[in-house]
């Protein structure tokens, strides 16, 4: 799951501008790895890939700031 997310962000969202691997703790939103269109695409991707629906009220910084935050959020949703 972690690798799927990292690959998608690196290959599809970062415009090929990232040289290094994405780290689980990289700030996706603040540093500009993902732009605002990218976050829409990332949410669509997560919904399709992991078969869940992300309601608007869950679209918070604390759920999507890093790959780590996304994984935490997804595991909370599974319970």
């Amino acid at each position, binding site marked *: 799951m972690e690798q799927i997310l990292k690959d998608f962000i690196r290959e599809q969202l970062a415009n090929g501008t990232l040289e290094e691997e994405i780290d689980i703790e990289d700030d996706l939103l*603040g540093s500009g790895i993902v732009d605002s269109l990218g976050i829409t695409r990332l949410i*669509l991707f997560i919904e399709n890939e992991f078969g869940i629906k992300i309601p608007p009220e869950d679209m918070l910084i604390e759920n999507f700031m890093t790959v780590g935050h996304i994984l935490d959020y997804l595991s909370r949703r599974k319970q």
Partner: protein
Amino acid sequence: MLETLPQIIENSARSHPEREAFRFGSKALAYSELEHRMHQLADHLIRIGVKKGDRVGVYMNRCIETAIAIYGIMRAGGVYVPLDAMTPHSRTLFLLKDCSIAHIVSTRSQKKRLTSLLTDTMVVESVIGVTLDLNIKSISWDNLFENNLENYQPVAIGPDDLAYIMYTSGSTGPPKGIMHTHFSGLSYARLSADLYGVHHLDRFASHAPLHFDISTFGFFTVPYAGATSIILSDAHVKMPFSLAQLLEKEQITIWYSVPLALIQLLQGGFLEQKDLKSIRWVLFGGENFALKYLKTFTKLWPHATFCNVYGPAEVNQCTYHNVVPDDLNSNIPIGEVWSDTSFKIMDKNYKEVDDGITGQLLIQSVTMMRGYWNNDALTKKSTYIEKVTPTKNNIYYCTGDMVYKNEYGKLVFVGRNDRQVKIRGYRIEMNEVESILLRHEGVQEAAVFVIEKEEGVKILAAALLLFPLFDIDSKMMTKFCRGLLPQHSIPTMIEVLPYFPRTSSGKIDRPTLLNRITDKLIDA
């Protein structure tokens, strides 16, 4: 009487040193602190060789150091050039070369991108705000703030000196650098502070990134009035729900953005639960505000005044219109010109047109740019000189925007002068087609293009973004258009897309969208 932009900070620091000038999350900068740090950066820049008129890049995500960066650069006599950290390196490298930037002010969170940008680049000599593992001089903010300003020799700057250069993308050709002086920037601060009655208790939500011209409201106007600018983080700008929470917490009084940023805030009905009685001005510009959203907002925030702001970056702002209920059934005017500004509406031959007739808008104002960087030909091409007396000329900027004056004397925006097309001899106004498509209750956004299907065969194509839970196909849409548009104005190809590409300032990225639609046509 203020003459330069840094005097804004010196002046506000004198009259209320302890008041917050900028806030970013839990970090705040009081006016006295900002003044001190502005001088620390200016001193450093002077020491490393920045001379009056030198261009200095600002490569940052949204952060509190942006305020120190721009005022420090200007205080050193330098010219700040915003560099969008999100843009591909090729464009940034073009800008670095185009206005020969030798120094960049940045921040630690840009270390990775800045390193990859500056590897193999010879133009940049030093970086401030982050230490790099490259063969380039660099200093961190912490080290810079240790400067005790011993032997500091402030540079004398005047109103006619250059203050900043903003690059616009332009739909064709390379980016253009718009040069503003201390005089034009300060004039904008004064006119906007006066028009909106900005006062020391105001709390402004600074949404625009630095490279977007409306950022000058948060960075110039707000400190001019001695108020507080709350710089929204990049994360908040991307996460509307977190943003709504922040607006409530900070009790924002003035908002200014493209309509899209407001529309995103609406989604999910989250905003309705937020107490935003504090908000008194909602300024929007850059694009049309779809009426159905604007209506929702005027109901949600009846205590706020909504102002349609118009002005190309070349003149900062130049017209305004405060929305009244009657507007909500038609095209919102861009209104009237503000103080110290005059206008003309002219036809292709530069003859003034009668009231009600559409022509190009020309603007003369104290907020007007000096010209385009390194491009006299373009500057000349976009200005119109009116001889008033043998010794006095009035210089107008040709906006390229088509407007007319309505029966109430207000200016109404019709479209770009390049948005009128001819297909098979029929004249088609693409803006009109877009506004018809938007009338459908399921359509959130619409963009209309001309595509050259094969040589000499042009067709009209539309891209649509739908509201959630709507399912509309091109057949249904064509049927909808039939009663509202002449046959030749109905798009031949209508594509529903899951999202629209955007520019970094939130406008629809039309060139990219056009490419995407063209690809679909070829695939089909």
